[in-house]
């Protein structure tokens, strides 16, 4: 009973919040609704018994990714509305609606479930975090290490890309300085 109520509540709220994310003109509203939608998605994971995944979702997505986005928004002018030229909104809605229909029909189709066997079955009486740890550090050890190297590469790339010329302000008008610089070059 609680599961049904929670499922419908979470799904209605997430779909609404993500619609705000996609439709809103304001970056701040879009980011806030995206963060709250991600919190509610971790609720789905808790209903599904994937406790560790839910906690990771909360820490990594809501904690790290959203903090990174909000830091990035400080570089850009986030307060003004975004003016976007939409070439053909009707076409976009048609394509989005059609893809939604196709995906829903695909997923609603009956699944031939006898042929599917669990590769790494969950154990009874063992916590989800323990189960995940055993599988992750035995069967998925090499992908885990590769993911660690990938995160290191991404960190270095982020520092190198964003770290150049950090002493200059992005939003202030620096064209005057540029003119002075070009005059110096001309001399």
């Amino acid at each position, binding site marked *: 009973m609680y599961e049904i109520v929670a499922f419908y509540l979470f799904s209605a709220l997430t779909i609404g919040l993500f619609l705000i994310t996609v439709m809103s003109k304001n970056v701040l509203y879009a980011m806030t609704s995206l963060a709250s939608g991600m919190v509610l998605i971790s609720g789905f994971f808790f209903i599904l018994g994937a406790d560790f995944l839910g906690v990771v979702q909360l820490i990594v997505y809501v904690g790290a990714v959203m903090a990174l986005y909000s830091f990035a928004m400080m570089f850009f002018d986030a307060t003004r509305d975004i003016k976007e030229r939409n070439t053909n909104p009707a076409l976009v809605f048609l394509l989005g609606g059609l893809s939604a229909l196709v995906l829903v029909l695909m997923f609603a189709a009956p699944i031939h479930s006898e042929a599917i066997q669990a590769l790494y079955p969950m154990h009874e009486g063992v916590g989800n975090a323990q*189960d995940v740890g055993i599988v992750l550090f035995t069967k998925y050890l090499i992908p885990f290490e590769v993911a660690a190297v990938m995160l290191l590469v991404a960190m270095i790339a982020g520092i190198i890309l964003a770290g150049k010329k950090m002493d200059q302000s992005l939003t202030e008008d620096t064209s005057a300085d540029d003119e002075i610089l070009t005059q110096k070059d001309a001399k």
Partner: protein
Amino acid sequence: MIGLSHYLIVSALIFSIGLMGVLRRRNLLMLFFATEVMLNAVNIAFAAFSHYYNDLTGQMFAFFLIAIAASEVAVGLGILIVLYKKYGSLDLDDLASMKG
């Protein structure tokens, strides 16, 4: 009773919302938000499969997906800052410099 199909349909709807955002957005930052929505939709589907087939593989893939999303954000935001320094705008139409 909530079955696997319920979760898959919600996941498909959220994925379509993200796809619609990717199609209609012209601002790069908002485009990143839409891709995050799509990645989260796939995560729901993985967790639902993992629960209903009693298999941990789905959760493993969801973990790696989260790692990939985190590194995508780090690199993507770095590129975004470089583009903003160079062009002073994040509009995709302004950034289109290749005429094909």
